């Protein structure tokens, strides 16, 4: 073999190796490394798509290295935010408002309406004997007379509290007409079972056991016009220092929702894992119901909530109602309320970019 032939064969060999490498890389479909992101979840429905994206490797495919922590509640997530322990999170609107006021966290997107609050009474309750008192809402039991003076077990400063006040308004009552006992849902369940209180506020999956106890559902959150979104939140630090990662995570979230939202069983299977792995006991059947009750917004629907003049969008209206509730309760000041408006709690830019890219 002469030098020319050797050169040609060597070149051909290296070209072959390069092609094979490129082919393998191409076949993996993996985007080049985008970076690392710390994610805070709860054992709630809005966390399920993020959980799926992580455990199914969808985040990894997108080049994201995700590290998730599951917290017991919104306040626990916010404490961790104060210590810069996470970059993005899934949570309810009330803790998101607190996170914005305290730490300048921003809402990236609204992903679904809270649909888990239920109000139960005992079968012998006078509330359970009356129906149809609220025009247009035949599912709501009781009327002003039967609800007045009742002791309601309800966690205060939560979406459930907000929904309860709206329900009272529909009945022609105010908070002063009932006696609210502040209890978290787990304790309230135990207390109600022990004979305490007249009405108990529960959310799923705890509420799934209520009918087994013989309790009667007096009202259901989605039947009440009190709109409380569940949201995706990012720290201001993450928005400033990790914009690509935040946007990539947002994309994988909505990719999961878009591709799999018709497959409740698939979602339910992951909801079962997420909850049971984090000390929330739920059966396979309950996890299916847990998911079937939730209507996730698609990317387009989520982006549409931000259409219109800033401050007057649908998203603004939802959050303003909750902020007004907090002001009314004295939990935040009017100045804080104005700060929420002036320095917008929302950061929909990534969402809008993704919606635009999706065409």
């Amino acid at each position, binding site marked *: 073999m002469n030098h020319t032939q050797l050169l040609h064969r060597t070149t051909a060999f290296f070209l072959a190796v390069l092609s094979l490498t490129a082919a393998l890389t191409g076949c993996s479909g993996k985007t080049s490394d985008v970076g690392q992101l710390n994610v805070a979840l709860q054992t709630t429905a809005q966390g399920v798509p993020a959980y799926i994206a992580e455990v199914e490797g969808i985040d990894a495919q997108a080049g994201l290295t995700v590290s998730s922590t599951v917290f017991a509640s919104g306040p626990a997530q916010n404490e961790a935010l104060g210590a810069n322990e996470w970059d993005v999170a899934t949570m309810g609107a009330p803790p998101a408002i*607190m996170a914005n006021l305290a730490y300048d966290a921003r809402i990236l997107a609204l992903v679904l309406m809270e649909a888990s609050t239920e109000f139960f009474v005992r079968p012998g309750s006078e509330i359970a004997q009356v129906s149809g008192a609220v025009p247009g809402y035949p599912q709501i039991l009781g009327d002003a007379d039967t609800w007045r003076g009742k002791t309601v077990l309800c966690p205060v400063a939560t979406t459930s509290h907000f929904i309860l006040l709206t329900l009272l308004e529909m009945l022609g009552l105010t908070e002063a007409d009932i006696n609210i*006992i*502040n*209890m978290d849902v787990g*304790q309230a369940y135990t207390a109600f079972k*022990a004979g*305490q209180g007249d009405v108990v506020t529960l959310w799923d999956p705890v509420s799934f056991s209520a009918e087994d106890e013989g309790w009667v559902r007096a009202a259901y959150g989605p039947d009440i016009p009190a709109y409380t979104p569940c949201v995706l939140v990012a720290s201001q630090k993450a928005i400033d220092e990790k914009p690509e990662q935040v946007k990539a995570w947002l994309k994988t979230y909505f990719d999961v929702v878009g591709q799999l939202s018709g497959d409740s069983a698939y979602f339910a299977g992951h909801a079962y894992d997420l909850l049971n792995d984090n000390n929330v006991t739920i059966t396979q059947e309950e996890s299916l119901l847990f998911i079937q009750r939730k209507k996730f917004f698609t990317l387009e629907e989520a982006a549409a909530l931000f259409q219109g003049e800033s401050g007057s969008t649908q998203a603004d209206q939802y959050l303003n109602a909750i902020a007004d509730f907090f002001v009314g309760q004295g939990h935040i000041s009017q100045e804080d309320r104005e700060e929420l408006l002036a320095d917008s709690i929302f950061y929909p830019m990534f969402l809008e970019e993704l919606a635009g890219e999706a065409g």
Partner: protein
Amino acid sequence: MLRGAVGICGFLLLWECAVQLGAVSAQQLCPPSQVAAAFFTKLADPRPDGATLGAHFIASSSVALGGFLLACLIGLPLGLAMGYYQPVYLLANPIFELLRPIPPIAWIPIVTLLLGIGAQARIFIIFLSAVVPCVINAYTGIRHVPERYIHVGQSLGMSRWRIFTKICIPCALPTLFVGVRLSLNTAWTALVAAEMMASVRGLGYMIQMGRLLIQPDIIITGMLTIGSTGALMSALLSLIEKRLTKWGAER
């Protein structure tokens, strides 16, 4: 006392400087000036948790003192009896040792089922914590009565009951008071856990709402109020102890 005041002032100054100069983020720890402002505001303003500091204090004091007094009423006689009468010790000690390590928060579901969600349930949670030092110290006080004192009583023909009441209990008083002071501190320590049960008033509730609303100044105000109240009551108990245990103090 002067040195104590200087120590506290120095600590507060260090804390204030650390936050103001950025050594500690204000998001992670609010400065004492902000805590002081929150304290004075809460004296008259029921926001953001629905009651003034005074209302919270009264609610907590009644629950804490109720649990503490119940602990003394039951724990001290039980501990004294366990220390002096072997059958009582053999009967009560296994149950006491079983229940003693259980944290108050673990009792909440059971207490809810048994006693409901009113003040009696919160008082019972506090009692469960506060009774432990009462029993232990009363038992220890009796067990450490010098044998020679008991022999003197016996040689004078005193009955067991008279020896118990005239010799053992006075001798055990200093240790009893240590237990009472510890019990009082424990009652205030258990308050936050107790007020996780169905409270809309109380320093523990105020701290929880501060947590929910991310207002660390409210949280620290609640914590310092609990700490200060506990310290003041402990100092008061020390004064009472000095009067009652003059004999023991002179020894």
